[in-house]
């Protein structure tokens, strides 16, 4: 049977493969190579070894962006998952209007990052106006503004995943616990939470990698102001590439480091999910 298929390779695989090679594979390999060179256009790349990687740390921008991103990611992961899980628990009780609430909570997720950024810029500046400051007055405002924005966007998304997890718990398990006299809070702690651990892992990593890779929202809400203090990693890389002539190599080196961080996060996730699958 395999032989029968093989001569059809050009039709089945080639269109996707060519697009994949041009859009992803070649740029990826070039990206790794260019991070070790000095260039303004790709044709004049000159090998400089680890120079670019050293230059990353010549000023504090990258480190600041990394710290800001890490802090943001931690706060966002905790708040989003606590809210999303609480909502999911409330919405799986068979209340009236569950569908309506689910629809409303999920909706912001579909709005693009740029539009989200400007919606919240208006609202947060409107509130801060009463105190005679703006969103870009202090990095604290930008930080919490982004946290609120991401909560608004992602709570509904994570809630959907938690609801799916909760609905997968066999009903007789909960019924048995009820008959044995367990209270609602005991059921949540002893049955629901352990049973939805896979969903919790997925949501934690989804929020984490979404927070880490955040760009559009960051650009639209504060664009890094004041003085680049609220620029996250992706925005800092973008600014290094396109903001300053002669720093393309440094930008690419930052991008490689960024890639390594995101890859480590993803592999940790894979490891966690695999481990769980073996256990269950």
């Amino acid at each position, binding site marked *: 049977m395999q032989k029968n298929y093989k001569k059809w390779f050009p039709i089945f695989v080639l269109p*996707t493969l060519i697009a994949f090679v041009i859009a992803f594979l*070649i740029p990826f390999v*070039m990206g790794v190579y260019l991070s070790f060179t000095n260039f303004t256009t790709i044709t004049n790349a000159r090998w400089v070894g680890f120079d670019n990687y050293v230059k990353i740390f010549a000023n504090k921008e990258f480190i600041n962006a990394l710290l800001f991103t890490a802090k943001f990611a931690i706060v966002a992961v905790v708040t989003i998952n606590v809210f999303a899980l609480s909502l999911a628990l*409330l919405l799986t009780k068979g209340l009236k209007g569950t569908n309506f609430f689910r629809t409303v909570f999920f909706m912001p997720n579909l709005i693009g990052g740029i539009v989200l950024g400007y919606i919240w810029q208006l609202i947060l500046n409107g509130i801060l106006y009463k105190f005679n400051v703006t969103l870009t007055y202090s990095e604290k405002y930008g930080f919490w503004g982004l946290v609120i924005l991401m909560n608004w966007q992602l709570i509904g998304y994570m809630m959907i995943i938690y609801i799916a997890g909760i609905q997968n718990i066999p009903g007789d398990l909960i019924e048995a616990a009820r008959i044995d006299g367990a209270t609602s809070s005991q059921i949540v702690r002893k049955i629901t939470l352990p049973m939805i651990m896979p969903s919790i892992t997925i949501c934690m990593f989804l929020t984490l990698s979404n927070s880490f890779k955040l760009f559009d929202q960051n650009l639209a809400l504060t664009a890094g102001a004041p003085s680049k203090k609220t620029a996250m990693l992706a925005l800092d890389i973008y600014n290094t590439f396109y903001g300053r002539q002669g720093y393309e190599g440094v930008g690419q080196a930052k991008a490689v480091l960024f890639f390594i961080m995101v890859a480590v996060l993803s592999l940790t996730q894979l490891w966690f999910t695999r481990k769980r699958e073996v256990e269950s």
Partner: protein
Amino acid sequence: MKSRKKEIPVLFLLTVLSFLFLIPIFIVLMNSFKGKLYISDQPFKLPSIAAGTFSGLSNYITGVMKIGFFKAFGWSLFITLLSVGAILLFTPMTAWYITRVKTKFTSMLYYLFIFSMIVPFQMVMYPMVKVANVMSLDNPVGIIFIYLGFGSGLSVFMLCGFIKSVPLGIEEASLIDGCTPIQTYFQVVMPMLKPTMVTVAILNVMWIWNDYLLPYLLIGTEYRTIPIAIQYLKGGYGSIDMGAMMAMLVLAIIPIVIFYLTCQKYIIAGVAAGAVKG
């Protein structure tokens, strides 16, 4: 019936929360009918004719003229539909082939597709734009090809997961009956893949419609999609026309809300399925 009374505070809480979730959109809508000078200092007041803050549709007219909204809408629609169409045509064929034909090469391809899913866009951004320039892919048709390449990782991965669970028997029967693999694929395999293809379509529509950076770098100077047009409205520092901005945010949200309300069932199912596998 024991818990009907207990439900009331919970329902009240959920109502308050859904109100909080909707109010940002309502505030933007309200401000889109206000004169641009009254937006920054009183964003939470309703526009009023008596106070002279109501501006009718003038924000919409200025906004549409300034950024060419309908043209941007057209480009967004064109790029999203054709890119998702290309992804739906080609990636399931690839996924089927590399699942059914087991060689070292196809399994290497499979792992490469998965690998591409964990690489952030910034890693390939700069070289990709250069490659696209050299190959004249920096136009609204070429970008479809780029989206096919970028979207193939997730799509192939999700489809392979499903194809593995499809029994071989039906395909073998159709081959024995004399169908070519291409006939087998379109008449037998593709109909079975439909549920997963809907998920793949939803995830890619959400991504491509809202994508900002890739189209901005590739075609942004000549062709603006909606996110590019909105960002363009910001212009230089401090020169933002708040009225036009509000009106354009409303126009940008309307198609999304329509899409959501019509395909809600598929979107929610697709997002849940995509997350479990992604």
